[in-house]
C-alpha cells in the first residue's frame, strides 16, 4: 500500500469520478508541448548534423592526405601502401579545382573534381544511386558528369557539350591569344541530394583533370574511405608517420567550421525553447499556489488527522513531479508522432521545394538522441517539481490551528 500522501496528490490531479482535473490536463499539455518543442528541434538539428556529416564524408572521403596545398608527384607508392590496409575500402587519387564552364554562352563557375576512371575505385559512394540519366561507365577523357542542379542552372542536358576553361589555360596562353576551351560531352548527371554538391560540382576523368590543371602526373590529394568511418581519427593518427612528409587530415578537420555552426545553432535554439518549459512551470506554480490557498481548511484538517508538514510538502511537490513526468513522456511521444508526419507538415507549412532550396536536403532529416530526450525530461520534471515546491512550502507553513479558524 503506497503512502496516503501519494494517494492524495494523485487524487487531486485525477479526482474520483471526474477522470482528470482541468489543472492537471492543461499543465501536462503545456509541459508536453514544451518538451515537444525542445526535443523536436534538437532531433531535427541532429538530423541535419548527421545528414550533412554523411554527405560531407561521401563527397570528401573519411581521411584526406595532402601536401600542404601543393600537387603530390610521388603518390603511387603511397596509394598502394594505403590500399593494402584492411581498414581501407577505397583509396583514390584526386585532383579538384574551380573552372569556368559555359553552355550556350551561359557561364558558371563550378568545382571540377576528378574521377579515377582507370582504377575505378572512388571514395564517392556511387552505389548510392548518385548517377542519374546516364552511366558512370561512359565517363571518359572527353566527357563530363554534371551535378544535377548545376545542369539545371545551365539548362544543359545529357548529350549536350559544354566548354570548360581552367585557370591553368590562362597561364599557358600568350598575350592576345584566346584560350582554347576543352569541349566535354555531358554523359550523366550527379545527384547526391546535397545541395552544395549538386549545384556546384562536375566530374571529369583524372587524366582530363590533370591536363586541365597542367598537373602532369601529379594529383592534389589522396582520399580514403574506411570500412568503419568512426575510426577516422585513429586511422589518421596511425598512418601519419608512414605517409610523411604528406599531411593527414579527416573530413571533420576539413569541414569543422561548417559543422560547428550547426552545433551552435542547436544550442541557441534549445535555450530559446527552454523558455516554453519555464513558462509552463510558472503556470503550474501559480495554479498550485491558488489551490493551496483554496484548500486551507482541508489541509488544516489533514494536519489535525495526523499529517506532518513534510507530508503536505510532498503532496504538492509530487503533483509537480507527476505533471513533469507525465508531461515529459507525453512530449516525447508527441515528438515521435509529429516527426513521423513531418514530411506532410513541412509540405503544408513551407513546401518541399523551398526546403531543398534553403537547406541542403529535399527531405527533413531527424535523428533522436537519447541524451537530448533525457535532458529534456530531467529539465522539465525538475522545473515542475520546483514549481510544486514553492506552494508546498506555503502549505506546510500553515498551522493547523489557524487553518481551522479560517471560517
Amino acid at each position, binding site marked *: 500500500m503506497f503512502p496516503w500522501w501519494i494517494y492524495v496528490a494523485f*487524487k487531486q490531479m485525477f479526482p474520483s469520478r471526474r477522470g482528470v482535473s482541468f489543472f492537471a490536463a492543461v499543465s501536462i499539455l503545456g509541459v508536453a508541448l514544451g518538451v515537444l518543442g525542445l526535443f523536436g528541434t534538437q532531433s531535427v538539428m541532429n538530423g541535419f548534423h548527421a545528414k550533412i556529416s554523411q554527405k560531407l564524408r561521401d563527397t570528401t572521403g573519411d581521411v584526406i592526405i595532402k601536401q600542404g596545398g601543393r600537387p603530390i608527384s610521388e603518390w603511387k607508392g603511397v596509394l598502394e601502401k594505403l590500399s593494402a590496409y584492411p581498414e581501407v575500402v577505397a583509396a583514390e587519387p584526386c585532383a579538384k579545382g574551380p573552372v569556368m564552364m559555359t553552355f550556350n554562352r551561359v557561364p558558371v563557375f563550378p568545382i571540377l573534381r576528378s574521377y579515377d576512371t582507370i582504377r575505378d575505385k572512388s571514395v564517392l559512394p556511387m552505389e548510392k544511386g548518385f548517377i542519374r540519366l546516364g552511366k558512370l561507365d561512359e565517363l571518359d577523357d572527353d566527357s563530363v558528369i554534371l551535378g544535377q542542379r548545376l545542369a539545371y542552372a545551365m539548362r544543359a542536358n545529357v548529350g549536350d557539350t559544354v566548354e570548360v576553361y581552367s585557370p591553368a589555360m590562362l597561364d599557358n596562353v600568350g598575350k592576345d591569344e584566346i584560350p582554347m576551351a576543352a569541349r566535354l560531352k555531358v554523359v550523366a548527371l550527379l545527384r547526391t541530394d546535397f545541395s552544395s554538391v549538386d549545384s556546384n560540382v562536375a566530374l571529369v576523368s583524372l587524366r582530363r583533370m590533370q591536363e586541365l590543371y597542367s598537373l602532369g602526373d601529379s594529383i592534389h590529394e589522396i582520399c580514403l574511405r574506411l570500412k568503419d568511418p568512426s575510426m577516422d581519427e585513429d586511422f589518421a593518427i596511425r598512418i601519419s608517420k608512414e605517409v610523411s612528409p604528406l599531411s593527414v587530415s579527416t573530413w571533420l578537420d576539413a569541414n569543422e567550421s561548417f559543422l560547428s555552426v550547426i552545433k551552435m545553432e542547436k544550442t541557441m535554439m534549445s535555450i530559446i525553447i527552454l523558455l516554453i518549459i519555464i513558462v509552463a512551470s510558472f503556470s503550474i506554480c501559480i495554479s498550485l499556489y491558488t489551490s493551496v490557498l483554496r484548500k486551507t481548511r482541508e489541509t488544516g484538517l489533514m494536519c489535525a*488527522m495526523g*499529517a506532518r508538514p513534510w507530508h503536505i510538502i510532498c503532496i504538492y511537490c509530487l503533483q509537480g513531479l507527476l505533471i513533469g513526468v507525465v508531461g515529459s513522456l507525453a512530449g516525447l511521444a508527441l515528438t515521435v508522432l509529429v516527426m513521423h508526419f513531418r514530411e506532410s507538415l513541412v509540405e503544408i507549412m513551407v513546401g518541399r521545394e523551398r526546403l531543398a532550396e534553403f537547406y541542403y536536403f529535399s527531405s527533413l532529416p531527424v535523428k533522436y538522441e537519447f541524451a537530448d530526450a533525457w535532458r529534456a525530461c530531467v529539465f522539465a520534471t525538475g522545473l515542475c517539481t520546483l514549481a510544486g515546491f514553492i506552494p508546498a512550502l506555503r502549505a506546510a507553513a500553515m498551522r*493547523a490551528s489557524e487553518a*481551522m479558524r479560517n471560517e
Partner: protein
Amino acid sequence: MNNPADDNSAPKEQDSACGYQNGGGIPREDMYGAGAKVQIENAVNADKEIGAGEDLSKGTPVLEAIDITKSFPSPDGGKLEVLRGASIKIHRAQSVSLMGESGAGKTTFMNAVSALERIDGGSIFWDGERIDKLFSGAQAARRARFMGFVFQSYCLVPELDALENVMLSARIAGLYKPFKTRKAARDLLEKVGLKDRLKYLPSKLSGGEKQRVAIARALINSPSLLLADEPTGNLDETTGEEIMDMFLRLCSSEGASLLLITHNPDFAKRTDKALKMSKGIILPS
C-alpha cells in the same frame, strides 16, 4: 485556579458506554500492537466497574487539561490573553458540552487540548499520558489514533467521494487495511444515513450530508475522544437537530467521549455534562 471538571456526573447510557465491541470503526485490536491490547482490556475493565454503578472518576480520564494558559501577540505589540487557566476532565464515554460567548476562547481551548496549538502554561494528559511537552510528530501520531474532529465547515477533500473521504482518515492514521477499512467506512456511512451516497463527491452533497460524512470520518479510527466545534453552526435548525441527534447517539454507541462546543442550550442539555466558558476560563458547573 478552576477545576470544575472534577465531578461525578455519570454517563446516561451506561450499557453502551463500555461497549467498544459494538464500534463501527476499526476494532481496537487492529489499531494497536499486541502489547497495547492488555492496556485496552484494563481500560475496558475499568469501564465495566463504572458500568456496575461505581464512581465514573475512578478510571483514567480520556482527557485532562489543567490550568491551560495561552496568549497571542496583539497587533499593538502587547499580549492578548485568551486562555487564563482553563481546566477540564473528560472521562471515558462521557460527553461534555462547552458553551460561551463568541471570543471566549473555546476554539483556542480546543486547539490547545488537541495539541494543534502549543500552550504557554498548564498540562495536558491524553489517556493519562502527558502530551504537551512531546514533539509535534509524536503528538500527531497519537492524535491521529486518539481523536476525531468535526468542524463547523465540513473540510471534506473535494476530490474524494464520501467513502474515500472517510477512509482517508484511516490512511493518515496508518490504520488502513483495504478490506476492513472499506467495510468499516461503509458501515459508518450507513449508520449516518448515507447508504446511497457512498460514491458522491462532496460538491454533490448537501450541507447536512457533508457533515454526516465528516462525522463518519471522525469515527473511522475508533477514537477515544471526539472534538466538535459548532458542528451544526452552518446548518438549518431541523437538519442541525437531526445531525446532533445522530451524532450524540453514535458517540455513545461507539463508546467515544465527546467535547462539544455549541451555542445551542438544547444540545448542551443532552450531554452528560454542560460547561460554560467565559473570558478564557471554564466556569464551575
